[in-house]
């Protein structure tokens, strides 16, 4: 059975339908890329999977590890292994990054019936993971993402992913706003986490990110549906020819 099974998913925001019958099946260990023009529903898919309020599924179902995803609150989804790397990570003044990481990690462990990490264990884990991503200790003491550059915010998302060790990571436009060096650091961080027990859904407008995070499967999302699925070469084709034909197709 697939890790993530999305069947005929319809999602509306404020009564307007954005996803119109989306099907997607992601097996354990696979990396899927979802590409599509602006407004095709890429971020909506990311948010509805993570459980954002106001993203209302009106039809269809999503099974995550065999469980009905829509029966679970966002924190339950996270504890079950779902992770969304935000396109625009939020700033939380007054909540130190360390406190945030620790609260999140321990909340998930508690929900899974695991023991909380000891302080030295936790600190070592964070330091190691942060070091690999070039995040210094001073940043960890600051409020979450407060005063971070765009690249630092994205690296902080990857750091959270590394610590929380999800089964499924959804990367929502992780490449947006990054220069090539920042992109490489983030992509290397993701690649280190690839393995048989972890799947990725990489959402992106551009093919560029997929040079660094090489997908197993590429989907084209247009007007709320997956309109084409192929191998990694599909991304190159899209880069060369653009999305025009899919937008026309969707408009018909």
């Amino acid at each position, binding site marked *: 059975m697939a890790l993530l099974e999305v069947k005929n998913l319809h999602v509306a925001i404020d009564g307007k339908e954005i996803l119109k019958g989306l099907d997607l099946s992601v097996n354990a260990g696979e990396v899927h890329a979802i590409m599509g023009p602006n407004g095709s529903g890429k971020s909506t898919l990311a948010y509805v999977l993570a459980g954002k309020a106001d993203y209302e599924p009106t039809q269809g179902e999503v099974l995550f590890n065999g469980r009905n995803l829509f029966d679970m609150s*966002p*924190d339950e989804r996270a504890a079950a292994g779902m992770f969304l790397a935000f396109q625009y990570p939020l700033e939380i003044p*007054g*909540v130190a990054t360390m406190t945030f990481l620790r609260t999140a990690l321990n909340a*998930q462990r508690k929900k899974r019936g695991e023991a909380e990490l000891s302080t030295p264990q936790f600190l070592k884990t964070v330091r190691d993971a942060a070091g690999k991503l070039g995040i210094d200790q001073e940043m960890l003491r600051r409020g979450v993402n407060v005063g971070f550059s765009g690249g630092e915010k994205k690296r902080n998302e990857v750091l959270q992913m590394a610590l929380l060790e999800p089964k499924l990571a959804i990367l929502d436009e992780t490449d947006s706003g990054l220069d090539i060096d920042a992109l490489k650091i983030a992509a290397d961080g993701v690649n280190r986490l690839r393995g048989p027990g972890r799947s990725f859904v990489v959402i992106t407008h551009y093919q560029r990110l997929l040079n660094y995070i090489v997908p197993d499967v590429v989907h084209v999302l247009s007007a709320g549906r997956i309109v084409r699925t192929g191998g990694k070469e599909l991304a190159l084709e899209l880069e060369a020819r653009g999305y025009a034909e899919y937008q026309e197709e969707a408009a018909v």
Partner: protein
Amino acid sequence: MSADVTTMKTAAETGLAQTFAQARAKLPGGKAVAAQREAAFDAFAKSGLPHRRIEEWKYTDLRALMRDAKPLAAPPDAAAKVLARTAGALAGDLEARRLVFVDGAFVPELSDTTKLEEGLSVGSLADALTAGDPALTRYLGKLAPADDAAVALNTALMGDGAVIRVAAGAVIKRPLHLVFVSSAKPSASFVRSLLIVEPSARAMLIESHEGPAGSDYQVNAALELFAGDQAHVDYVKLIADGAQALHVSTLAAAIGGKARFNAFSFVAGGAVVRNQLFLRFDGEDTVAGIRGATLIRGHQHADTTLVANHIAEGCQSREVFKAVLDDEAHSVFQGRIIVSPGAQKTDAKMMTRALLLSERAEADSKPELEIFADDVQCGHGATAGALDDELKFYLMARGIPDAEAEALLIQAFLGEAIEGIEDAGLRESLMEAVAVWLKSRGPKQ
């Protein structure tokens, strides 16, 4: 026919007049103090309890909120004293020198007045008044605004309080803690304290108020604080009264030049709380941090009214007041920064923020700047809003459950004010008090 209009006296006003008539002969102090009391009560009787048409009390209509006047508290009995032993825990374990007052009366056997540091003197106001301490006349009533109804009542009926003096140059490391406890009897206490910190001296004063939840007792507490040039004074007021209590507090302070002054108010208890601060920066180049955190729920009403008057040049003041409101609670912040004509180079910034956890809660804020000098930097800001759903979703998407995510955001919100407290132990105690308050939040409707 006379054109005078006599307003109907409320039950509370009539009660206060009776209380004063019965108590005036027994209250401590000589002739001069008695005259001070008479004048204060006359001033009060003329205007009566303040109400919503009095601008300073617009949001706290004491005439409506104070239904009756409780009788003056009797001297505390043994049972009341036993309860007071563990009081003041909210401040944490600071190993402070405790001066304990039960129902407004100083209790020497619960207080620590031994081995006083050099330069420190402590005593009770009742003793000082009875002894006719001539030093009192130099300070008593010199700062508290006589035209304020709460102050007038306090002056008329003050029974006891603390008189603390720190001699010039003395650095008192051990904090002083005035522990005010009300017992189960629904009575009224009027306490008046003096803190005199002479030039180049340093002291930290904590004042806490608490009492049983089931008693509708009334507290009127006033402190006149004198800080000399180059003094360093930290003052913390913790209002954790019982859920039915009426609490009116006044701080009147005059700060000298090149001094450091920090004041923090923590309001979590009481049915109706009015916490007023009248500050005067008399000397040049003083740096002051005036902060506060209010956490209220149910039908609690908490009013913070601040007047910070910059008289001398070059003072810097930062005012940060935060309120968290749940259920149908009502918070008020009235903050006025005055810059007198001579107070050039004043740097004053005031910020008040309210976080509403319920749609039925209400936060009123009225920041004001009155600037009579032209070379100053002054500003103020006020916000009120709900918890940010986007931030909450971000936390929940990382596995943090709903209530814990909210608690984290509320702690972060209050942190900006609480982090201004210099003493790390006290800071932690207050963050812990916030955590306890958050844990006891009821299930959401």
